[in-house]
């Protein structure tokens, strides 16, 4: 089971990375980041079957941090939507040089 879980976790992580790199909507990019974090959670849970509770404790922390990050991230996305009326990253290009 362990190998399958780790393979699934790696696949989910890869999907998340590809999503972040290819999608252009800030919300979808953020969802892909969350997918990456949850893929890692799956790894931790699978590995904690082998090594004991540390992995599961880590998962609790990751979920807490991800929730805090979501609160701040969505607030930032709303802030940018107020200025631009869009959350498409292609239109967010004031800063360049």
């Amino acid at each position, binding site marked *: 089971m362990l190998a399958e879980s780790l393979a699934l976790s790696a696949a989910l992580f890869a999907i998340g990375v590809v999503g972040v790199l290819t999608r252009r909507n800030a919300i979808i990019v953020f969802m892909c980041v969350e997918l990456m974090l949850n893929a890692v959670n799956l790894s931790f849970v699978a590995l904690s079957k082998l090594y004991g509770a540390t992995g599961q404790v*880590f998962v609790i922390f990751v979920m807490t941090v991800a929730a805090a*990050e979501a609160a*701040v*991230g969505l607030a930032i996305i709303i*802030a940018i939507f107020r200025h*631009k009326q869009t959350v498409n990253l292609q239109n967010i290009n004031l800063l360049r040089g």
Partner: protein
Amino acid sequence: MRYDLLIPSQLMGAMTPDLLLMGGAMVMMLVAAWRTESDDHQRTVGWGSLVVLAATLGAVLWFAFGDATAGQGVIAVDKFRWAADVIFLLAAMGTVALGMDHNTRDGITHAESHVLVLFATSGMMIMAAARDLMILFLGLEMMSIAVYVLAGMNRRSERSAEGALKYFLLGAFATGFLLYGIALVYGATGSTNTTEIGTRIMGYQLHHTAMLLVGVGLLLVGFGFKVAAVPFHMWSPDVYEGAPTPITAFMASAVKAAAFAGFFRVWIDAFSVLDFAWFAPVWWLASITMLVGNVVALAQRNIKRMLAYSSIAHSGYLLVAIETGTHLGAAAFLFYLIAYTLATFGAFAIVATLTRVNEQGLDIADYDGLWTVRPWLATAMAVCMLALLGFPIFGGVGFFAKWYLLQAALSAEHMLIPLAVLLVLTSVVSAGYYLGVVRAMFMKPRAEGAPEIAPTGKMTRLVLGITIAAILGLGVFPGRLARWTRQSVPVPPAAAAATATGQTASR
């Protein structure tokens, strides 16, 4: 005093400064929310935050000059932690002081801007203390989440919001890599304690386990993002440009120093036995970072972007110190970190002063003839530029930082000679843009109809005075600081254990 970190009360004792700062930050959060937003209230909270930071600094110094040690556990109690804490706290105090003046001028009345600096700083202190990847991750996120908000602090500015969005998305992306790296290292070794990881790699001969090596690679990518090493640097110029300038000063100095402190400790504690694997990647990372950072900085017309690329280049220099893997290299790393923090903070403080309302006047052309209208500011800026360049005497401590770094690189392994040569060559390239600013300030005439420069605030003057005095003073007497950094080097416990049992590490 020797702390036994397995006993909760003693663990709390070993974390006194961190707990003091967090408690103080929460109290200040309440104070900030107590009254309606106004400029006076913003200043009150600013002063309160300075008091909290000063009290924490006092506690840190009490530990630093004491002889506290600790056994095995999730945090380290050593001189490296206190040295790093001093850097973060001083930079945070400067940021709050600058922020008070900046908020008044730009009409930002959120008192929370100072409180968030406190929260970010407590995250940094946790990072510098972490001896467990779980603690490291928590510290990193406490810092990052607070700084995401700080980057977007100026809600009226579109650039500020855009910088915050970019910082947030790429920061969270990097966190994903870091976390997956931690998971794989945990999978390969069965522990998240950095000391334990180091011993288990040695004990079970895990050196060539694929899972471990991939995990270390992902950790390197994650830390590469956080310290803005090329090719993971894309976010930093945009974010530095968009954020309010005092916050940029904070990000370029304290946040970067914290990322490096965490990076360095994990690398020394857990992975110094894997140096055969990371030697080449870090070598390339350091050389490309130095090269790209310095060359691209030449092309910048916006002073904040130029300083952002300069700080990328300095990440490259610091990576050279990590690459040496010697005691001398670690001391040079700490010394360089202090010198870099001082000079970068000073430079951004001056940019913050000269920026007009709503982040106008950031072109290097706006600094033409500054000497004729603001001679003291021009001189201070010149000192910071020369310190970043590593110029003798006038650059103060910057020269000795580069000198010790080169010494460490040349006395390490033979493969570091090309890196040392590259360091010198790219430093010569960097003269092109550092001296460009100096030339603009002192040798060009002030443009016709250049807008009046607002008077420098009292707090800003104080911060600048202290920073410049420190740069020049430490440049005259670098010996004390050098001795202190040599004593504050983190000792790799795995290597220490290996020599104790008669084995030698792979180097």
